[in-house]
Every structure is written in C-alpha cells, then in structure tokens.
C-alpha cells in the first residue's frame, strides 16, 4: 500500500516537473510551420535534400522569424498527389500550422493548390513543384510560389540553340506534365525565331528500351532535344551511342546532371557543348551563390557536394516565408492579410538571382543557360554561358499571345514545317 502511494506521489511530482519544463519551453513563443517533401518513394533522396534547403534558410535566421521561435512540422509524401494532400491536411488540420511549405513535384503541387482553396485562412507556399497549371489555371489566392516553373527554366535556350546553328531538331521527352512544360519553354521562342522541331517522341517515364525511338530519328536534323531525367537519360545516351548516333544534344533542366556528366561511354567527349537551361547552375560565378554553397557544405556534412536544384528551390521559398514573417513581426491576424501583403512584396537577391512574384503569385526569376565544359582536372561540368533575367510565366510573350498558345502539352506548341 505504501509503495503504491509513493509511486503515485512520484508520478505526480514527475508530471508536474515535466509540465514546468514544457511550460518554460513554450513561454518563448513558438510558431509552427508545416514542411512537406518526399521522404519516401522515388524522390526520397531529392526530398531529403529539399529539407536541407529549408533547414538552411531557418538556420541562417538562428531559428527565429517575426520574433518567434520557428518549429518545422515535417511531413512526408511519396510523390503521389494523394499522399501529398493527406500529409498537408494532417499538418494543417491536426498540427494546426498557419503556414505550410511544400510539395516537391508538379502534380503534387496542383493537388495541394486545390486543397489550399478549402483552407482560406492558411497560407501555402510552394516547395519545389514546377507545374505551369498550379498558378496559371484556376490559381488559389493563398498559394504562393517564389520559384519559377518548368517552362520558365527553358526560356532562352531556343535562341541559344539557333545561335549554335541548330535549325532542325528532333525531340525526345518523357510523357508527363513536367517535360511538357519544359518543351514549351524551349519551343516557344525556338519556333517563333524560325526553328523547326520535325517530330516529337514522347516516351513513358522509366523507359528502358529506346531502340524504336532511335530508329525514328531522321538523318537530316541538326540536333536532338532530350528532356529526360535520371536513369532515363543515361539509358538513352548509351543506346544512342551504341546505335551509332552522332548528333549534338540540347538538354532539359534535369537532363544533364551529375549522373550524366559522370557517364563513362565512348561518346563522353561528344557531351561537350551540350546546352541546357535551369533556374540555377553549379558554377554560377556570384558571391551570393558561393556563400550559399559554402554555408550548405558547412551545415550538412552528409549532404551533396553542392546543393541540388531541390535544396535551392526549398531554400528560396522558405527564405521568402521567413522574411515576410519578419516584415510583419509575426503578425498573422486578420486572416493573415498583412502577412500575405508582405509575401506579395517579396523581393530579395537570392543565391541565383532575384526572387519576386507576379500577380498570380508565381515566381519571376532568372534562367541560366549552360554548356557542358571540361574542367582543368578532366571532369565535366555545366558552365554558365548566358543568364536571362526577369522571366515571367508567359515566357516573355505578351499575355494574349501566351493564352492563345495555351499550356504545354503533347501537341502544344507545334512547329513541324
């Protein structure tokens, strides 16, 4: 009996102590921000790196914004939109976050934007998703995207290809939303300035055998436009080389990455000069970018040799989120009205150019045109050859012209003849 009593007394004491400890922890006001990325499934590795990008932005502010301690409520999806919405809903409705950052991939972004409409009092900020439709068709007034999207990333590459004398090209790309956007970004200016894309081959994501596509490539083209990612790109390159192909290439934003640059085949040398474009490049020669890379390397010993595209995009979106909180001193009252005005006014110099948004709350930013170059030590890297600043979501076209063209799809745009 006495033992039970003692145990009882001790547990009460212990409970009181833990409440006290927790209480002091809470006394310093904490603001929860939801953070969604893909920690499982095919994009688990990029997802992890995107979390690093967000953590870095918070670390640079010493974990504080708007006078409050910021706590990330991390949730995960497996790159399927269903899971992204479920995870977002959990953070918003169960963990009660007032601000939500994410998701990572394009279709997830569209699904989360549709969910955002049902939660008008919460502010949603994109992670790294880059589908055009998220902010172009039926946008949600509380969804912000500070990064540019897949089509914007390719603007300027068309002119660059023409300047290299590629007048007739054959296109091969994966058959889903992101490559559609990329192809549109390339073709919008390429076609307008007189280039011809004689045919397009849309292959399913994860295609292993490209023999039938390679057989279709006409002899009289000047270059190939290859918008494939990861293992698809490597598989295509290998098989194209084995089939004796020798045309120069133009790549998409995720085509010529480290996996492709480390490619060991005979045709390795022919990769030299391959042009591609994206919202950032490993070799940007600006103090902001160098500081960003140095900070990333110092903070994350287990990270990549250089921050990935995803880390960069999550970084600028998180930074915009926190800066706006500072601007309103953490005031989220009145349906976050003041906070959203501050978000709209965002304009800072990010690691890779200006970060600001348009009236649809979509990023207007810089694109980097790169070419594969040989470094002094013999390794290949993407050298920045041109920067194209201030690219809007209409790809530099007047809005009416862009609307007439419509969003990128398998058949839009078209310039065969």
């Amino acid at each position, binding site marked *: 009996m006495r033992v039970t009593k003692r145990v009882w007394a001790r547990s009460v004491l212990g409970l009181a102590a833990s409440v006290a400890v927790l209480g002091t922890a809470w006394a310093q006001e904490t603001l929860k921000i939801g953070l969604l990325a893909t920690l499982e499934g095919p994009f688990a590795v990029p997802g992890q790196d995107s979390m690093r990008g967000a953590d870095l932005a918070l670390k640079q502010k010493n974990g504080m914004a708007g006078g409050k301690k910021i706590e990330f409520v991390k949730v*995960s999806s497996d790159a399927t939109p269903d899971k992204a919405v479920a995870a977002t809903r959990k953070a918003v409705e*169960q963990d009660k976050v007032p601000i939500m950052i994410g998701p990572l991939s394009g*279709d997830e972004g569209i699904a989360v934007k549709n969910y955002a409409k049902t939660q008008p009092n919460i502010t949603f900020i994109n992670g790294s998703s880059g589908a055009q439709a998220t902010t172009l068709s039926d946008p949600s007034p509380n969804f912000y995207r500070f990064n540019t999207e897949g089509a914007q990333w390719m603007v300027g590459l068309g002119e660059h290809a023409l300047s290299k004398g590629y007048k007739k090209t054959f296109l091969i790309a994966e058959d889903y939303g992101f490559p559609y956007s990329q192809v549109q970004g390339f073709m919008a200016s390429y076609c307008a300035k007189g280039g011809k894309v004689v045919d397009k081959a849309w292959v399913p*994501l994860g295609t292993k055998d490209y023999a039938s596509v390679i057989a279709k490539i006409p002899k009289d083209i000047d270059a190939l436009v290859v918008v494939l990612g990861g293992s698809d790109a490597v598989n295509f390159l290998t098989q194209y080389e084995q089939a004796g192909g020798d045309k120069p290439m133009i790549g998409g934003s995720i085509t010529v990455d480290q996996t492709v640059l480390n490619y060991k085949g005979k045709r390795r040398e022919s990769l030299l000069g391959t042009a591609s474009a994206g919202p950032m490049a490993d070799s940007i020669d600006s103090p902001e970018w160098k500081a960003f890379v140095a900070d990333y390397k110092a903070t994350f010993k287990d990270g990549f040799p250089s921050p990935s595209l995803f880390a960069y995009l999550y970084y600028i979106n998180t930074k915009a989120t926190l800066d706006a909180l500072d601007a309103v001193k953490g005031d989220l009252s009145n349906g976050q009205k003041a906070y959203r005005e501050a978000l709209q006014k965002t304009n800072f110099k990010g690691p890779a150019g200006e970060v600001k948004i348009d009236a649809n709350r979509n990023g207007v930013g810089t694109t980097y045109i790169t070419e594969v170059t040989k470094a002094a030590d013999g390794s290949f890297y993407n050298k920045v050859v041109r920067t194209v600043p201030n690219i809007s979501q209409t790809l530099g076209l007047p809005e009416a012209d862009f609307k007439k063209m419509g969003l990128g799809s398998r058949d839009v745009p078209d310039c065969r003849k």
Partner: protein
Amino acid sequence: MSAAYWRRAMNTAAASAVRPLPTAPVATAGAPIDGSAGTPRWLAWLMQHIAWRHVLVLLGVLLYPFVATPFFTYQIGAQALALGLIALSLTFLGGYGGMVSLAQMTVAGMAGYMVAIFGSSSAAAISLGWPWWLAVAVAIVIAVVFGTLVGWLSVRTEGIYTIMITLAIGVAFFYLAQQNYTLFNGFQGFNKVFAPSVLELDFREPVPFYFLTLGCALAGYAFVKLLVRAPFGAALQGIRDNPRRMRALGFDVTAHRVAAYAVAALLAAVGGVLMVWYNARISPGTMNTAAMINILIIAVLGGMRHPIGAFIGAIVFVLVQNFAIDLLGAVGRERFNLVIGGVFLAIVLFSPDGLLGLWAKLRSRLDPQSPTSNQRRRLQ
C-alpha cells in the same frame, strides 16, 4: 471445421443436387429462431443476432463525427472506412473463399477512373460529364465486370499463383493507365473529381462524407455477414476447405469462385468510388503496387476470419500512417517508415491472425470458458 455447417446448408439449399447425408450433430452457429408467441419474427431475429457490443459500436461510429475534429472525421474516419471496404472485399475473397487477390485495389481504381471518365473532372476533353448517379452506376457495373474477368482468369490457379497473376493484372492496369492518354489521361490522371451535392447536402464536407462512407461500410459489412451464412457463402467456404470434395458433391467450383470475385468486385468498386471522392482525384499512383499491397496489409493486420477485421485493420493502418511521423521527434522524423514497418511486423509476429486473433487469444486467456474457438469466429 465449417464442414458440418456447409453440409447442413447443402441439405437445405442444394437438396435436389445432392442426396442428403445422414445428419451429423448439427453445429448451429446461431440458434434457430424460436417463433414464440408475442414477439414478431423480425424482432426475435434482431434480438437473436444483435448483441450489446454491436449496439455500442454502432453508437460509437454514429456519434464519432460529432466529437471528433474535421480532420479525424475525414482523414482518419472516412478514409479508414473507405479503405476498409476495399479490404473487406479481400477479406471476403481470402477468408471465406481462400483466394488472396492483390487486384482488389485495381478494381477499386477502375471504378474510380470510370467515375472520373463518365462524370466530370478537370480533364474536360475526356470526361463525359454525366450526372453523378449515372456515372457511379456505370462505374460500378464496369468495375464489377472487370473484377469478374480478373476472377475468371485467376480461379484456375491456387495459392501463390493467384497472388502472382492478380499482381500481374494490377501492374498491367497501372501501366495501362499511366501510358494511355486518350482514356486514362496518363501520368496526371484526373483532378477535381468532386463528391456530389444531393438535396443541399454537400458530400465534400467531412461530416456528410463520413456518413456516406459509414453507410456504405455498414451495408458492405452486413452484406458479407449475411452472404457467408447463405447457401452460396456456405458452399464457398466448403470450396475453400476442400474443393475436390465439393466438386464430387456436384458443386461447380469454378462458378462459385468466379461469383465470389464478382461479389468482391462490387465491394471494392463501391470503395473505389468513395476513394476517388475522398481524394477528389485519381491517377495511376492511387493504385500502384504499393497501394495494392496496402490493401493486403490492412486485411492481414485486422485478421481475415471475420469481416470486421478489415475495418479494424484499416483504422490501425490509417492511424499509423498519419501519426508514425510524430512518434520520432528525437530520432528524426525522416525515419518514420521504420515505425510503420515495426508496428506491422509486431502485429503479424505476435498474432498470425491479426488483431482479431490477438483479441480472441486475450479472451480465451481471460475466460477459458468463452466460446472463442476458431470455428465460431469463422461462422459468424
């Protein structure tokens, strides 16, 4: 053990087909209804079959949305019920028919896709925009036909080969949906497939949608409970236990199995319609291999011996999926899949019959007299 039971069932239902066997001690699952004067038959039947625990559970699920937050009503409650309904189709097939099919999520996905294609969605070029009730009816019919065809293909196999062939069909349909653009809209699938509003009742709201799924789940549960006691269900269990003997007795084993697939397809199709409304969208990812296996996990987790197992499994599954990430604050939230795997492994390790088996073990330990032997569970 259900041998005695199906024998009795055959004696009444298939008397013309088989010569009555000398009646062994008849194991009655529910005692025969006594038509004592005073109480009407239906009331007597109800009192016979409905115990206090049923009333308690029913009250619990009816009152749940009024005490729970919208998040718990929608994402936990409604999702668990819809997933449970799809898992119920597998429990019915596996527990009563002895056929483990991985393609139940595919059947559900087919129904979901058909709702998107015949109803309205963001892909205006493909969706036909029919009224929701017509779209749903057509979707369920097509999914049932599809599920029956799957059954017709796979009944000629047994055990692990059934799993393989249904897995193959599921993966094939996944790739078809992912690569076909004229009908399934490829990788992107369909967005904005919203639940309808009926008589000012908007089923997109958590509470109405919860009651919609609850109604479907209860109907599915009652349907399975009744069916497994009907002659068809009894014959199905006989086929599960000894197909050769049933064939010798004059039953068409293949026809019964295909019919079981059709019934399971109906359950999965209704679950699929609920799932597409729940997500308000569908794409190949909704029914990829991981989703197909999730249904198997749910069914095994709950226990395949009783239809309630599917729903118990679904509740545990949804809770773990949603909250595992909160349990690992210190270790790092990235590792939450470890918790999910660990929980499932522990349950299966300690009770091969899932949570129901755990419950039965607990009961027989606490009260050795209680009739919780397998036979009873199986026959309920």
